């Protein structure tokens, strides 16, 4: 066998990235002289070796000879101290390897069984201690997905690195087992908590997250049938009944006053009430029922939106977790109706301070250390970027929020907007229904052990020969091929009747979900294409391998569908048939391994009744007097990580592909990050899609109700500032809570949900889609083995989407022309509880900004009118950091100074940094002063003029004077080196 393994090494003769790469590693604290990189292709064939001439032919196709060289079967020699080779563990998706395999396959069509494994070989020049070397390795590789091999220069010698082939070896016997549930409650709950015991290895397979009540219900169900469940059935029920899929906390009755639960009472009811009240002006088309929510774009098109989180996977493997998060939510677009085209990606990251290095471990005795916030930030930034960039989806809209309570569990939000014609040839594309007799087809990637029990993690289970199960690496190109053939070809040919995405729970959830449309299904697991043989039936059924869609295809269309996808090199397989039997029946090796009534599968979980408790926490008010030098305070505020520029992310995310860029992520000559963006999604149309968001985790512990209201107001205000009217705006909610079995946390949740209902109904902005993630807690140990629990602050992301009627009338945030008037729209109160300024002072406070929806709605209408009448030169919502920060941002963005005079009864620092809601900074041409003031009336207060190159603020006898260039430097300093 070994003789059939070749190794081709590729390198740049003069690597253009070497300096950046070296500098980066040095900036992380490794005193190296140089870090060289070699790409390695390990090639195996099933039948014969390649000749030297053939290897040359292969090598020349893997390089550009102008700048690169290759070396087949002979290692590159160089001066270095250590060689570190990083490859993938067996079974982990290796995109580079599979691309190289296609190239070799095209060139040598006759050679069978070619496999290519890619790896990267680093030559480290510089003396590193053993400890530092180990740390460097852990920076270059993630033990969850990577295999690593290190040699000294001496060990490397002339023979180089070893030829390792990460083939998957499986020992399990692939059969379905029966699980005896006739156990005492202690043993029963162990099955729920730790998983089914494997009959051969006696290891537990990982948590089912079924509680005792649910396990009793399952035992009763099968008791009536006179048998025990198979492992396939039990795993399937665990997936379908999981918090992730069924949202039990939002669905359960709560206390005495919410018999229908939070979702029905506060979210769905809000949307229903708003839609009814708006009547013919209702903008919603599909809410909550499909993979995304949809609103009307114009007479011909609709737009969809969906925001997901991918928190646990991103904690373990930030790159892979974030990548699968974004490509996963892309599939919620492709899986909307009969398939919408993804046209905008959005992101949001809650992480720890990247300059901190918390020492926490998942295991006892300093085992399994958590990744540093810097690594998590770098990884998730890169992951979402690769996902969007490779898929040709612009990513203009996003944000980052830092707080130390995110160190154990980062929150990674990923969302996608889709565009789709409302009808084609009389067929409504936003409706779908599988019919009995339709074939169940899975298209896209193959199934492996990736993502089984996705959220669970067990380092003991990883041995060098076992595939990775906890995390997946996405393959955007496989998905791009799938997406293209679905939304650009098959959909409009009418080749299928229904489609959905494979996300959590894999085909067990997607097929069972679609089976509701016709009331039954039958699947043969033997037909499911696998990445490697030897998978157990339960694994095939629940695997979360990426890039797969499930379709319902009428038998008469199957040949045309298969022919089309075959020509696009997208694998598709018939795995069964939809029926009207009322059952979900699954076969494997000729046996029935699952036979459950759909009614039980979907609705058999016992209803819960949750009780909540709410205690208001009172925090000490920060004790300080107004700083003497407010200019210095302003500069310090601009440098706060939650306020300063994170432009390094915006520019590495392609935000111009698809040609719809109107108002992008950074604006103005001074390139300031905007809170909202505007994108055209239909060529030739004057309309555009505006996106914004609001989230205030720092308000949650003080007042969750006002926190929710602030999120909604801010999300809406971002779009109002672009010129989108209130009635054109819809909302999405993402609750990321912690410790959701704690009545106090549930009490906060209930108040936040009530805040959502009251605020959304007041604004008449419907929720169209939402998602929740209820257990964002880290439980582990510190270096002294003391148990540590770190819970995220209750985090509610409100995303907004709105259709702008005429993008040529939209407004950016930058001050534009010398002499323009500067207004603040809205009133400033002493509302600094949970503000960034109090955080800067080291406090929390208690007065969270309050919202009077009726008051601000009238104001927003006036702002909309003023923008529509072209009276506004710039508009920027006042959010985190308050007026002082916003005025600075507007000035920096325009590279223009301002001279402002402030009258206030508040302490000036409070006035400048209060986070009162409902406010904008607006600049207006002097020619429009009268008209603007007429429209805005009392809502606008003239502060001064755009002038010179300094920000000058006078208030009473206090004067602040700072050059705009100095503001800009402060605003851009913290992430300058990223």
């Amino acid at each position, binding site marked *: 066998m070994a003789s059939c393994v070749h190794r081709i090494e590729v390198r740049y003769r003069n690597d*253009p*990235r070497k*300096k*950046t790469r070296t500098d*980066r590693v040095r900036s992380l604290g490794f005193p190296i002289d140089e870090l060289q990189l070699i790409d390695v292709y390990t090639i195996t064939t099933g039948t014969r070796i390649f000749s030297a001439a053939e290897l040359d032919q292969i090598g020349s*196709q*893997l*390089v*550009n000879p*102008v700048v*690169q060289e290759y070396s087949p079967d002979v290692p590159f020699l160089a001066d270095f101290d250590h060689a570190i080779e990083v490859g993938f563990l067996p079974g982990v998706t290796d*995109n*580079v390897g599979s*691309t*190289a395999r*296609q*190239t070799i396959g*095209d*060139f040598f069509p006759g050679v069978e069984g070619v496999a290519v494994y*890619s790896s990267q070989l680093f030559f480290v020049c510089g003396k590193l201690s053993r400890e530092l070397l180990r740390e460097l390795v852990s920076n270059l590789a993630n033990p969850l997905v990577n295999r690593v091999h290190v040699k000294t220069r001496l060990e490397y010698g002339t023979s180089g690195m070893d030829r390792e082939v990460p083939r998957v070896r499986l020992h399990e016997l692939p059969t379905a087992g029966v699980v005896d549930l006739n156990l005492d409650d202690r043993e029963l709950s162990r099955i729920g908590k730790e998983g089914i015991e494997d009959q051969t290895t006696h290891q537990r397979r990982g948590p089912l997250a079924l509680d005792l009540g649910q396990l009793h219900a399952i035992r009763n169900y099968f008791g009536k049938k006179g048998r025990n469940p198979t492992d396939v059935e039990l795993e399937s029920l665990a997936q379908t009944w999981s918090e992730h899929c069924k949202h039990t906390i939002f669905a359960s009755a709560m206390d005495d006053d919410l018999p229908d639960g939070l979702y029905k009472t506060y979210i769905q009811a809000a949307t229903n009430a708003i839609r009814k009240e708006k009547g013919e002006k209702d903008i919603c088309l599909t809410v909550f029922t499909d993979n995304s929510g949809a609103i009307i774009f114009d007479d011909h098109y609709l737009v969809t939106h969906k925001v997901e989180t991918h928190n646990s996977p991103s904690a373990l493997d930030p790159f892979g977790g974030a990548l699968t998060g974004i490509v996963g939510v892309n599939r919620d677009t492709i899986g909307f109706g009969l398939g919408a085209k993804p046209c905008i990606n959005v992101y949001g990251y809650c992480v720890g301070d990247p300059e901190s290095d918390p020492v926490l471990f998942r295991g006892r005795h300093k085992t399994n250390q958590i990744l540093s916030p810097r690594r998590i930030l770098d990884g998730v930034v890169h992951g979402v970027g690769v996902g969007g*960039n*490779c*898929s*040709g989806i612009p990513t203009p809209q996003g944000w980052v929020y830092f707080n130390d309570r995110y160190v154990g569990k980062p929150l990674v939000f990923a969302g996608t907007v889709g565009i789709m014609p409302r009808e084609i040839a009389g067929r409504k594309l936003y409706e779908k229904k599988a019919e009995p007799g339709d074939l169940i087809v899975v298209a896209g990637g193959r199934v492996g052990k990736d993502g089984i029990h996705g959220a669970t993690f067990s380092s003991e289970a990883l041995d060098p020969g076992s595939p990775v199960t906890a995390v997946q690496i996405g*393959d*955007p*190109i496989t998905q*791009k*091929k799938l997406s*293209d053939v679905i939304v650009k070809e098959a959909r409009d040919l009418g080749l299928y009747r229904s489609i959905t995405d494979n996300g959590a729970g894999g085909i067990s959830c997607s097929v069972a979900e679609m089976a509701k449309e016709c009331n039954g299904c039958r699947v043969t697991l033997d037909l499911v294409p696998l990445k490697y043989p030897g998978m157990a039936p339960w694994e095939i059924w629940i695997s979360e391998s990426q890039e797969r869609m499930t379709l319902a295809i009428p038998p008469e269309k199957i040949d045309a569908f298969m022919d089309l996808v075959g*020509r*696009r090199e997208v694998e598709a397989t018939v795995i069964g048939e939809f029926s009207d039997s009322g059952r979900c029946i699954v076969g494997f090796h000729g046996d029935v391994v699952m036979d459950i009534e759909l009614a039980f599968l979907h609705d058999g979980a016992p209803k819960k009744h949750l009780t909540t408790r709410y205690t208001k926490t009172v925090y000490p008010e920060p004790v300080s007097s107004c700083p003497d030098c407010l200019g210095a305070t302003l500069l310090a505020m601009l440098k706060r990580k939650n306020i300063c520029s994170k432009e390094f992310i*915006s*520019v*590495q*995310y*392609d*935000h*111009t*592909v*698809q*040609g719809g*860029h*109107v*108002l*992008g992520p950074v604006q103005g*000559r001074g390139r300031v990050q905007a809170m909202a963006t505007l994108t*055209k999604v239909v*060529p*030739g*149309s004057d309309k555009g899609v505006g996106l914004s968001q609001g989230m205030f985790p720092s308000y949650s512990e003080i007042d969750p109700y006002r926190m929710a209201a602030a999120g909604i107001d801010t999300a809406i205000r971002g779009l109002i500032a672009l010129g989108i009217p209130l009635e054109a705006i819809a909302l999405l909610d993402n609750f990321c809570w912690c410790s959701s079995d704690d009545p106090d946390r549930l009490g906060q949740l209930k108040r936040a949900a009530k805040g959502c209902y009251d605020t959304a109904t007041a604004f008449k902005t419907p929720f169209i889609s939402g998602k929740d993630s209820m257990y964002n807690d880290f439980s582990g140990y510190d270096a002294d083995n003391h148990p540590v629990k770190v819970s995220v602050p209750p985090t509610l992301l409100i995303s907004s989407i709105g259709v702008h009627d005429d993008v040529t009338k939209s*407004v*950016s945030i*930058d001050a*534009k022309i010398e002499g323009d008037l500067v207004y603040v729209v809205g009133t400033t109160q002493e509302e600094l509880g949970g503000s960034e300024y109090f955080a800067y002072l080291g406090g929390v406070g208690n007065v969270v900004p309050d919202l009077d929806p009726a008051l601000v709605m009238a104001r927003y209408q006036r702002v909309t009118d003023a923008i529509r009448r*072209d009276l506004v*030169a*710039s508009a920027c919502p006042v959010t985190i950091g308050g007026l002082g920060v916003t005025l600075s941002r507007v000035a920096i963005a325009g590279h223009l100074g301002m001279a402002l005079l402030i009258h206030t009864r508040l302490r000036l620092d409070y006035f400048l940094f209060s986070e009162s809601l409902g406010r904008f900074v607006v600049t207006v*041409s002097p*020619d429009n002063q009268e008209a603007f003031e007429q429209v805005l009336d009392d809502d606008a207060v003239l502060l001064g003029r755009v002038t010179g190159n300094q920000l000058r603020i006078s208030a009473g006898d206090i004067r602040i004077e700072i050059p705009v260039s100095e503001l800009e430097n402060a605003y851009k300093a913290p992430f300058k080196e990223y």
Partner: protein
Amino acid sequence: MTTPVVPQKKSRGNDTFPVSDLVPDKALIMSGFGINSEMETQEALLRAGMGSDIVHINDLIDGRTELGQYRLLVFPGGFSYGDDTGAGNAFANRVRNNIWEDVEEFLAGDNLVLGICNGFQILANLGLVPAFGGRFTRDIALVPNRKGVLECRFVTLKPAADNLWTKGIERLFCPVAHGEGNFSCSPDTFSRLGEQEMIAFTYCRDDLSPANGEYPCNPNGSTGDIAGITSEDGKVLGIMPHPERAMEFVNLYDWPLRKEQMKRNKVPIPIESLNMQLFRNIADYFR
């Protein structure tokens, strides 16, 4: 600071944008395996007056579509094969290993080839540019950006040669969005490109003075600020930035400021951007 823009009037009913009369010849826009800018490229050509078909490369390999029916071959932007084995390299291998004879025949005729971004990377790996002496060897490379990450921002380009592609263009102002756009070649090749006026576009400052390799005006570190070159016979253009992504005035990075300036100067606000001139030049070639 100001980028001149050609004002255009609205026309054609509901359609906001003027569409010139279509030339009889059509373009083939290549798609598949991660190419992703085919639709906006089609739109730009259509507005300039040239119809096109988006064709999956496998349909050319299978013979379902004949390259010979077309006069313009476009490799649009994208991330073919996820940039694996080098940007554009795997797609170039796919072309070379499957439809090379068709491409050679196409090049021999009176036809044009355009590669944008990933398309330029594909052209470079196929040797369609610079193609000195009509030989399709790889003489240039688009290597990773000096900063090591993908860079998406608007850049200003200046024509560096007078040819069918650059006719009437004073500047372009459009986005780059690539991780591997750093133009590299031997000193010999570089001087030949200059001498033979094959450097089509260079990165420059707002005032059209050379970027001199300085970031961010030169966004990737390209030798000689090169953003695009033609083949020796002038019929093939490869360019890294994306004029098709900023066809309209409102696509331009600085349009809100310029709109305000134009309003105050009582200058009509244009609809189309100057970047369209590149596509008009292509359509005009076939008139």
